[in-house]
């Protein structure tokens, strides 16, 4: 009797446990968090068109860069700026310098019910700050995410940085910042345009696109890494082709000519 129970348990274990965790036969792509919706759609399209699967891992550009330097097995890296890819190139981890694949925009977002009124010149925000009515304001961590760095530039330009600094809540990634900004945990935030255009996010409040002149351009560069396989190289080319560019435009990015 005891042997039967033992055999049964073994069978159960074998059924429940899928195959041993191992490196899969697909391309692993690291992407800045702002590409959360856009790149997922592009990868789906790629899978349909070419039949190969892409595994996407989103994170802040700084964290992904660090992981790649520590040996993370990515084959393609889409950053939110040009600085991080060039660091990797300088360390000899890339195949060349890569290309700029898109340029991003910031928006000022205020969730429904927030006292913040949104406008391009940030007058609503300035007023709230002066009235000390800002509970929390969300941006991405400038040290980790280029979109956070851009947000800091915008706030400094409008002379709000020092005053609003104590109330800032900084997301590790731009998506985390967007979570804070759109779920009512803050009066609002400076987040990526592409995220606000994602499904179900825009309805959560009001937003306005920040003029490009107010921050250093968010030129987003991607690089193939040394270990990139065929599928990754194909995907690299695919992103620069028309089908993908249309998707990027749809998600609020500018695309290079």
């Amino acid at each position, binding site marked *: 009797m005891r042997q039967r129970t033992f055999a049964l348990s073994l069978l159960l*274990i074998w059924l*429940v*446990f*899928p*195959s*041993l*965790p*191992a*490196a*899969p036969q697909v391309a*692993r792509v690291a992407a800045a*968090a702002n590409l*959360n919706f856009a790149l997922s759609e592009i990868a789906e399209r790629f899978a349909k068109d070419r039949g190969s699967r892409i*595994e996407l*891992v*989103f*994170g802040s550009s700084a964290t992904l860069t660090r*992981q790649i*330097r*520590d*040996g*993370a*097995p990515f084959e393609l890296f889409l950053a939110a700026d040009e600085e991080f890819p060039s660091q990797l190139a300088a360390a000899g981890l890339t195949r060349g310098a890569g290309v700029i694949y898109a340029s991003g925009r910031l928006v000022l977002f205020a969730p429904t019910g927030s006292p913040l009124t949104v406008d391009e010149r940030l007058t609503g925000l300035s007023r709230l700050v002066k009235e000390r009515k800002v509970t929390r304001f969300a941006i991405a961590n400038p040290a980790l995410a280029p979109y956070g760095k851009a947000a800091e530039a915008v706030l400094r330009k409008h002379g709000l940085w020092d005053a609003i600094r104590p109330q800032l809540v900084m997301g590790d*990634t731009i*998506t*985390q910042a*967007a*979570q804070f900004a759109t779920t009512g945990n803050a009066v609002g935030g400076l987040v990526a345009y592409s*995220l606000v255009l*994602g*499904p*179900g*996010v825009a309805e959560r409040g009001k937003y306005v696109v920040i003029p490009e002149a107010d921050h250093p351009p968010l030129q987003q560069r991607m690089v193939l890494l040394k270990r990139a396989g065929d599928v990754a190289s194909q995907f690299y080319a695919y992103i620069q082709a028309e089908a993908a560019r249309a998707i990027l435009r749809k998600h609020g990015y500018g695309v290079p000519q």
Partner: protein
Amino acid sequence: MDWSALGVSLWLGAGTLVVLVPWGIWFGRLLAFRHFRGKLLVEALVTVPLVLPPTVLGFYLLVTFGARSPLGQAFQSIAGHSLPFSFAGLLLASALANVPFVVQPIQRGFEAIPRDVRDAAACCGLTPWQRFVRIEVPLAWPSILTAAILTFAHTLGEFGVVLMVGGNLPGETRTLSVAIYDRMQAFDDRSAGIMAATLLVIAVATLMVTTTLSRRVSRARA
């Protein structure tokens, strides 16, 4: 529901058990029965992962075994991949983080065996190995079981170390707890909610199994 993430979590739990429990039995017994200089220090070291923030462990593992370190490069040339950002690296991190959960209950279990009973076993003609298998392990069994289940449950809940050392690679190092975080970031609360509920159910079920098992064992033992 990310099935591959569930699989990774379960494999990590099982793998940690396979790696730690036999060693824990040997080491817990050693701490229980032997007295040596520096024993206090050893016991303190065993407890360290309990009080250390997981990020500290993650940091040291990355620094020691990352691609930029000599050890990491040596590993890479042998195994073909880096130790962090692989399941093997995760297993190492998990094993280190769970040392106190394994060693301490087992040590208490062996300590609870009266000295006279072990001596009596020797006087009955049992060799040290026979004493271990027929007297010590059966008497310490409830603690061994508790240690295993505690470790498994704790592994399922690991997050900080997993994220730092594993890097959220789907199918390889993306455990269920990390997948929840990942889905939340991606504005996919629905998936996150399903997985969170699953983890909760597994945790409760695991603990219920422990309690029943240990009650049954101690009744048979008493």
